[in-house]
């Protein structure tokens, strides 16, 4: 047990970072460690967190999906503008269907046409950004009476004093961890990311596996969009712009390897937590919002350095 604990920082160096950050932050503002604030911090990052869970599958399979930020913009616009017309259930169904289609297109192009995933999703990112812009028709779509709709449950309500969005993040994380860790599909994802050729020789359907990871990433983006829409009850056309970078940052921060095969849901959750606390702490200390990016930059590079050190045993290449 003690040996396990000792090995922990070496295996997951991001833990050290999280602990150091919390210590530093609690010295500056003790309020940061209050339970209330911790929940607030996670709540602010629940949308990013839910998206990051899905992209973790893609990254472990050795691919990358940068289209999710634009996809979120599109879905939020669709859900909000349909909410008053056809009701929240149908609006959510529409959002989920669009997400599945986009995920299937990405997955088909990457898995079956063997195109490079970064480039393909860069293309869909660009296209979806335009779609969000056109779909919002140049106005800020809003739900007319946000408090009257039960749709507010996902983003604005509390269950056992914890925001529902945090519950959703927690449940999604648990389900994702089980799928990745305890199912044949999860093992296939790791195998494909670790060595695709070997996985094919082990009679794993690599193409279907890669395809499914993209659908999962899009589906979880749909869940994130529902939380976002329910919280904001309005749809700026650019609600997801740049989120893909934050999502990737939290995944890499957790130590999931970009080469595929190595990583996990728990790591991504820790990565999201670190970024959430940084953002939250900066707000509490009164730093400008842009300073967060600089801190994120330093943290990501430090984390990657520590992670390579832990794996390689030496800091230099």
């Amino acid at each position, binding site marked *: 047990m003690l040996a396990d604990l000792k090995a922990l920082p070496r295996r997951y160096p991001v833990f050290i970072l999280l602990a150091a950050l919390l210590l530093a932050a609690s010295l500056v503002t003790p309020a940061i460690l209050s339970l209330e604030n911790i929940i607030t911090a996670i709540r602010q990052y629940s949308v990013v967190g839910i998206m990051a869970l899905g992209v973790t599958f893609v990254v472990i399979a050795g691919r*990358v999906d940068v289209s999710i930020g634009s996809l979120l913009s599109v879905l939020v616009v669709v859900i909000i503008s349909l909410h008053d017309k056809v009701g929240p259930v149908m609006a959510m169904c529409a959002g989920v269907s669009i997400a599945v289609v986009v995920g299937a297109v990405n997955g088909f*192009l990457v898995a079956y*046409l*063997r*195109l*490079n995933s*970064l*480039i*393909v999703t*860069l*293309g*869909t*990112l*660009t*296209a*979806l*950004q*335009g*779609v969000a*812009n*056109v779909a919002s028709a140049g106005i800020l779509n809003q739900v007319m009476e946000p408090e009257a709709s039960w749709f507010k449950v996902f983003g604005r309500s509390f269950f056992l004093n914890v925001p529902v969005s945090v519950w959703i993040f927690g449940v999604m994380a648990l389900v994702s961890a089980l799928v990745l860790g305890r199912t044949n599909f999860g093992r296939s994802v790791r195998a494909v990311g670790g060595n695709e050729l070997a996985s094919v020789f082990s009679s794993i359907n690599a193409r279907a596996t890669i395809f499914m990871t993209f659908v999962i990433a899009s589906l979880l983006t749909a869940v994130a969009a529902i939380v976002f829409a329910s919280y904001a009850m309005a749809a700026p056309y650019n609600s997801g712009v740049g989120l893909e*970078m934050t999502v*990737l*940052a939290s995944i*890499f921060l957790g130590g999931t390897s*970009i*080469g595929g095969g190595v990583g996990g849901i728990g790591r991504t959750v820790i990565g999201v937590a670190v970024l959430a606390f940084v953002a939250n702490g900066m707000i509490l200390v009164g730093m*400008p919002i*842009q*300073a*967060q*990016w*600089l801190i*994120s*930059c*330093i943290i*990501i*590079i430090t984390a*990657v*350095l520590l992670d*390579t050190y832990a794996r*390689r045993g030496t*800091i*230099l*290449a």
Partner: protein
Amino acid sequence: MSTRTAERAEPGRRSNAGHNIGRKVLTGALGFFGQSPAWPLLVLLIIFFMLATPNFMTWFNVSNLLTQAVIIGILAVGLTPVFISGAVDLSVGSVAGFTACLLVTIQPYIGLYPACAFALLAGLSIGLFNGLLVEIFGLNPIIVTLAIMLGVRSLTFLLFGSATISPTDDRLLDLVGTKVGPFTFDVLVFLAVALAVGLMLRSTVHGINTYAIGGSRPAAEDAGVNVTKHVVFNFALCGTLAGLVGVTLVGQLGAAAPVYGQGYELLAIIAVVLGGTKLAGGSGTVVGTLVATGALTVLQNGVNLLNVDVRYVTIIVGVVLVLTLTLDRLISGGPGSSE
């Protein structure tokens, strides 16, 4: 090669000479045009817009087109060697924004041209820093340059504030607007840069080693190539050219804002990849990048001339990228297949 020499040695050589030259031109042309999947795209787009809008082929619009191509073009030309050596740089848009603001901020104190030099030097330093992080510590270039992209953008806001600032010296604006023949000065700079980088890749030891490293890094190492030196040089060059883009932005727009260059890295990467350069490294040319930049610019410009809503342009660019790569993959199994 051997068949060609054999043909030449035949008795009926004179009658074959024309045929041989024709064939040489043909293979040369095929080799030239085969460099990039963007050629058919560029030709189709030009024909389409020539038929669709009367104003497309006017001198005014062509010169306009070239000016529009400069910004993404220089970024893409700078990215090409980095891609060929098997790396990526996502920070170029942020670097352009940073150097633009730096130039305008320090220009009143140290004069215009020293400020320009300083901006280029800043770009060089950031590129060097990227390259050293990637090579010395063996980190993944996507992660490193993603972090640097965030960091540099943040520094730009923190150091220079979030307002738009204008230079007190208009000479840069005048210089960029100066016409030399049919071209404005910034277009000439762009073409000179493209020529220089193209020659560097084709005919220098550094260029050849760049291809070798991208093709197979272990093989290059075994052959005694100093991989670190060449990759870091490419990153530094890319950073410097991103700095040049910052200077050009100030020259074209007469102002600088910390949001300058946001999202440009994505457009530049699209241009490089459409131009036939593989993400995995080892192949690609500056000519391909130029053609793809041309195709993207013609697309945006033509769609504007057709009075199509600007918001549709991003959709069209995204769809064209995916479709071109798909067709390229289906027809030739070509560069789009880079894994």
